[in-house]
């Protein structure tokens, strides 16, 4: 279902790519030019800078300044620096000054930095 925009073909590099096998964090990083239509799911940590239409679910989600998400976001902790149009649900939500949000926000703890533009309904859940 998911469509990854891997349009950029990089020239082949001879050096061997090393995976950090000792890493305890399963971190996914999705770059700026990634476009997803569908769902993105992880059990650990997602660093997202691309465009997504659909759902995104993880334990920790970091939406970077260039990110755009239209749809549903569910996580334990979400940090938003980009643009969101849809439903956000998390225990802890951190909204940074560059964020632009439209939709519904369901939270237990919320932190909003000034400068952010939010047009949303807020629901506190214990």
């Amino acid at each position, binding site marked *: 279902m998911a469509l990854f925009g891997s349009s950029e073909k990089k020239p082949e590099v001879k050096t061997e790519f090393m995976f950090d096998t000792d890493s305890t964090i399963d971190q996914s990083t999705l770059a700026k030019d990634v476009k997803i239509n569908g769902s993105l799911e992880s059990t650990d940590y997602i660093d997202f800078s691309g465009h997504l239409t659909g759902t995104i679910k993880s334990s920790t989600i970091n939406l970077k300044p260039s990110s755009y998400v239209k749809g549903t976001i569910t996580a334990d902790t979400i940090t938003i620096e980009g643009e969101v149009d849809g439903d956000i649900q998390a225990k802890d939500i951190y909204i940074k000054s560059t964020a632009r949000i439209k939709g519904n926000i369901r939270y237990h703890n919320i*932190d*909003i*930095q000034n*400068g*952010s533009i*939010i*047009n*949303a309904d807020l629901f*506190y859940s214990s």
Partner: protein
Amino acid sequence: MDENNISMDENNTESSDDEAQSIPLDNDAKAVNIGTGVRVDGRIEGAETSDISGTLTGTLKSSNINISNKGVFSGDMSGQEITISGSVDGEINSDDYLIVNNSANIKGVIEYASLQVSYGARIQGTLRHRGSVQSYTPVTDDEVKEDLNNESQEGDQ
């Protein structure tokens, strides 16, 4: 007239040893101070600074509004600089900045230009950002003309 001044003194009870002391009683500062345990029903307008530590039900229009930890407000409030540490049920309209501290409990509609919410605050309701349009400054005709002039001058040289 003196009787009014005396009745206002009720707010400044011995127990309030905080900022209330620093405000002189005779002032033209258009200050409103509703102390802890004081209940007010009605409409306050034209105030410069409003410190609410008691209970206020009604309408509040003031440049600066501060709802302290113990303050309870229900109704409509509008102002430029608003700080909320207590509980609010109703509508908040802030022209300039709105600060919501972690002890705040807000229910209702919030219209704001600049909003800062501390981790721990409870907000149940609608957030509306105003000034999304204001932040966009269109290029005026004069600026365009100036640019054109500059370009033509550069061309001459």
